[in-house]
């Protein structure tokens, strides 16, 4: 029973509310992001809102392309895509140029891009294929170890850049996919034990001092009022002083007087909290929830385990970013470079989010094809 290639028109007709809601919430979030970025970067020399508009436009193309490509085709070549992504990642890790203390950017005509974002999709693709094979009647033994190995390679490369936040986001992805794939409790505990040992080793051998400072300052926010504890404090002041309705567009004193660090990227949600208050926070979190919820609907309706796992992996990345970023700017988690999907300024992460959305829409469109 080979999947037959569907003609384009019936395909478009199969686009139902799920896909519309996915696309529209993504677009709405991007639009809100643009407004907040333009307010936060009003005094900066770069026109971030113009650049972000370009990225959104490019992202829509990527989204359409990803929706058009049959995911089973991508799954078939997942290993090679993964290898290519790893190679690109290794190239920038060792030869890329430095920005903000991390070697992770490749220049594309003045715009920066991070292969680590591309690598996220490649890893999810390979894992989805690998874990789907584990659903066979005779499951291969030790599939979790192989899956972990697939994740460890990019994580180590990204951690070496060093981009701890980017590396960290692979953890919820692997966990969510493994749980959905039906990992046994005993294997999971063993994997966690090994991960703890590896994390300890990373703390001792791999972490830079500034990263250790960030992590430890999270537990003692008043110890170093001008260091990373200062950022948490200023971010909380921004959010708290936004109150219920916020101070309004361009009126956020914390962001416009530069008390907030990187207000257009990682702290964009703090700017939103300051200028639009709890109301703005609730609306944006609601839209993000709408997006994730519709992603889950796509996963639940998937026609095969690989498709479901693919969507779960992509959603876990998105959810991880959403939870970590919103928790970090309000001081629940240590500050590290984790952007907020669709809202933070950043090209390749925007492209990742759009590609993921496109893949989910493509899956939704093809849900009946194989039956």
């Amino acid at each position: 029973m080979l999947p037959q290639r569907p003609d384009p028109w019936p395909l478009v007709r199969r686009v139902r509310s799920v896909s519309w809601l996915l696309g529209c919430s993504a677009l709405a979030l991007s639009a809100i992001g643009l407004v907040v970025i333009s307010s936060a970067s009003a005094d900066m020399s770069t026109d971030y809102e113009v650049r972000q508009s370009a990225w959104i436009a490019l992202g829509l193309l990527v989204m359409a392309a990803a929706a058009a490509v049959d995911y089973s085709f991508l799954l078939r070549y997942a290993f090679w895509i993964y290898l290519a992504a790893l190679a690109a990642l290794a190239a920038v890790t060792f030869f890329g140029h430095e920005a903000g203390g991390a070697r992770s950017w490749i220049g594309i005509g003045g715009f920066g891009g991070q292969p680590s974002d591309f690598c996220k999709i490649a890893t999810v693709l390979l894992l989805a294929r690998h874990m789907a094979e584990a659903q066979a009647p005779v499951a291969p033994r030790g599939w979790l170890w192989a899956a972990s190995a697939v994740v460890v390679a990019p994580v180590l490369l990204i951690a070496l850049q060093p981009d701890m936040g980017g590396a960290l986001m692979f953890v919820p992805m692997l966990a969510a996919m493994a749980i959905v794939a039906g990992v046994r409790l005993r294997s999971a505990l063993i994997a966690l034990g090994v991960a703890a040992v590896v994390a300890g080793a990373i703390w001792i051998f791999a972490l830079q001092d500034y990263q250790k400072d960030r992590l430890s300052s999270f537990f003692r926010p008043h110890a170093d009022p001008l260091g990373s504890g200062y950022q948490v404090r200023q971010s909380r002041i921004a959010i708290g002083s936004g109150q219920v309705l916020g101070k309004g567009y361009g009126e956020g004193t914390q962001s416009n007087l530069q008390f907030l660090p990187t207000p257009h990227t990682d702290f964009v949600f703090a700017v939103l909290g300051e200028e639009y208050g709890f109301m703005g926070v609730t609306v944006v979190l609601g839209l993000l929830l709408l997006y994730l919820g519709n992603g889950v609907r796509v996963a639940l309706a998937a026609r095969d385990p690989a498709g479901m796992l693919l969507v779960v992996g992509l959603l876990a990345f998105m959810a991880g970013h959403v939870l970590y970023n919103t928790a970090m700017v309000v001081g629940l988690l240590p500050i590290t470079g984790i952007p907020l999907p669709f809202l933070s300024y950043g090209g390749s992460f925007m492209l990742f989010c759009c590609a993921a959305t496109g893949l989910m829409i493509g899956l939704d469109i093809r849900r009946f094809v194989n039956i």
Partner: protein
Amino acid sequence: MSLQNPTREHSSDWVLLNMAARLKWLCGVLGLCLAVVIGAYWYHQIIRAEHYERLAENNRLRVLRLDAPRGLIYDRSGRILVENTPTFRLMIDRSRSADLGASLAFAAEILGREERELRAALERHRGVAREVPVLLAEDLELTQVARFEVSKEPEHPEFEIATSRRRLYRHSFQTAHVVGHLGEPTPSEHDRDASLAAGDLVGRSGVELLRDRLLRGNHGERIVVVDSRGRLMGEDVRRTDAAPGESVTLTIDLRLQQLAESLMADKIGAIVALDPRDGAIRAMVSSPSFDPNSFGGRLSQQDWDRIVDAPGKPLQNRAIQNTYPPGSVFKIAMVVAGLAEGLLRPEERIYCNGATRLYDRRWRCWQSRGHGLVDLRGALQHSCDIYFYRQGVKIGIETIAAYARRLGLGDRTGVELPGESEGLVPDPEWSRNRRGYPWYPGETVSVAIGQGPLLTSPLQVAVMTAAVANGGFRVRPYLIAGGGKPPEPLGLDGEVVSFVAEALANVVENGTGRSARTPVVAVAGKTGTAQVVAQATWIRSEDLPPEQADHAWFTSYAPVEAPELVVVVFVENGGRGSEAAAPLARQMHEGYFSAAPKT
């Protein structure tokens, strides 16, 4: 499906159903996490909102003080005694300096200071953001200011000249004890007065202390918006202008004050001049003096110690804070007491052969060869001690003390200046209560010529003299124009006062006060020579070591007919009043009355 194919438990549908169940469970976990996050935002944005709003305002707003210029101090004719003068401070904006070391070397060269000192000055501002100009040096000279301004473009844009004000005491030493000086407030003063800011100076003595609150005015405020690095952004949120301090006009006559200071230049002591009609102080000099300008800026502990411990203790105001035995000027009080009580008869004569015996002791007159037969007038004229020894015993210590106090001795005069001493007019009650042993009758003999435990300040002597000059009224000396009180009648018989007045005129005309006589104006006065140490044998004062030499007094007023000015001269260890003090009083009267007509 599984029923159709029971051998294939892992059919595609079965697998998908299991996966979906686990996915739903994961969604629950995600929901819980999101709820926690929402809860955190709820807590910070709604429950703690006001707290964070305050913090945000604290971040954004900064209060800048606008200093109020301190009020000026004028003499009675509107001549400026104390004013404010602009000073220039060198500020540096470190963010505009290409090479901080070169900038400091450049500044050090112009200022003529060590580069290392400037580096130390800069070190104090290490916590300040680089874009905020910080203080590098104070009190620049105009030529230095010019050199910095010229080099500003384009080589040294990092330097800025800021102006501020500094207190200028135009007549430094000459008016020091009257106008006083400024100093840094103590921590407890800071606590009590919220209007004081770091770096403010407050009055520490004299009129500066007396009228401090008035002179200081009220500072204004600028509330500005700053960014995270402390740079000013946009317009002021609010601005309250400073209310300059009020000016103060004194009763002091600058020219007389300057004259008095020059007369005392190489002496230790005090000169007080006041108007006997209302107590307005025309001159008050204490010597040695100090330069209040040296307190204007920050004063090192070393400088402070140098001023406080200088020989002669220049910070003391000897006119009101120190008390001394009055010597023979006390005889004025003796005569008033004796006449008012009817115990002295002017025509009664006593024979002075240079010494007498009272209470089993030998008492000497200052004139060892004696004055012969002297009546009351003659006793004052020649300051005969024997006469007053004997009359003192007759009048009695209680009466002497009562009149001395009524005339203002041993009692604070009430002048506005802080730190006035009370002095001492002793009597038996004082002896029992304070010394703890009875009054010796022999002490009355000493008190009768202004010795013994008697202690008076030059200003108290001036008040006593004013009472003779103005016909029997007690004046309250005052320094601030308009601050006078009407003199209080002492209840003395007019004839008593006029007798004393006539006798004092005679002292200058024919007696011990002859060196105060001047063709310019008719002067009345009384000399005093106070012993510093009790002497078993008579030694001429000139032969004593300087610190044991007699204190010289001369109290006077002029013109005799309608007195306008009381002058008291006191020279510590100066020797005889007639030689060391009276000539200075003459110069004071000459200076005052030969100048332009006075009111």
